[in-house]
């Protein structure tokens, strides 16, 4: 049990490291489901790709601002 809790804690720490990136990816995955549920299954793939690129951009911009001391 101790090791399972340890493994779950490691996974939590790993995922919580880059909050914006992780949260954005999870929201994109939820939106993917919503778009398919709305009956737009053929648009869902390209839209998901765009969401992910935007999430990556936002996360990188945040990190760059932190590193460059803005």
């Amino acid at each position, binding site marked *: 049990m101790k090791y399972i809790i340890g*493994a779950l804690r*490691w996974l939590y720490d*790993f*995922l919580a*490291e*880059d909050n914006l*990136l*992780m949260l954005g*990816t*999870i929201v994109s*995955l939820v939106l*993917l*489901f919503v778009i*398919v549920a709305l009956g737009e*299954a*053929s648009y*869902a*793939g390209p839209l*998901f*790709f765009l969401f*992910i*690129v935007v*999430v*990556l*951009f936002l*996360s*990188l911009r945040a*990190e*760059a601002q932190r*590193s*460059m001391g*803005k």
Partner: protein
Amino acid sequence: MGLTAVQWGVVIAAFFASAVEYVEAFTIVLAVGVTRSWRSSLLGALAATITLVAIVGIFGVSLVQLVPIDTLRFIIGALLMLFGMKWLRKAILRYSRVKAFRNESAIYQTEVTTLEDEPRPAPGVFDKLGFLVSYKSVLLEGMEVAFIIISFGTGAKNGASNWLPAFIGAGLAAALVLGAGLLLRAPLARVPENALKFGVGLMLVAFGSFWAGEGAGVVWLGNPPDLSIIGLLLGYSLASYLLILWLRSQATRQLEVKTVQTPGGVQ
């Protein structure tokens, strides 16, 4: 061996993902072996490997048996996305010079210095510290490999058919890194680790997007739909390249602003 194009993709992705993590773990195992004892270092690495195989076995088998395939593909896709996005972000930051490149030789030297400062056990007594440091490093680095193998292994349409390609990729990487490491007896600093991490990040995000989409019921372009993985890979590569260019320009502009603001700088 009759592997499909997707299965070859899994072999390649598992190989490079595993190789990168093994190189990082090997640096620590080597540092422990050189400074403390080879026995405790190798036993620690072996114990961690057994733990990781157990994790893959337990989680992998229970996921395949308990979770419906579409749900499983979505979960697997999501996991690959989460891991891949982290790798890709880090790689983009490194290639745009916002973050420093990883240097195995420097890490090795730091680890050797730290371990040399620790008191040694009496002769004939098992070196617990060496064992624990080696065990922990292999377990932590290998945990990502374990999750990636579970993800690839359970991600195919036919439940278990990707296990073999995933294991082949990871096994080949282990043999190669271990062989090269034992031959050289030095940190594998010449392995293009940063470039590999970039490539693997792209592959994980591309596979993750495809499988998450498959699980959610996305209708992909291309016939067969698996071809979309190549499209996703090219799309993410192009986006990453543009992001690197943008970040580099940001860094340059920031440097120019600082130069102007510095007394004596160009006005």
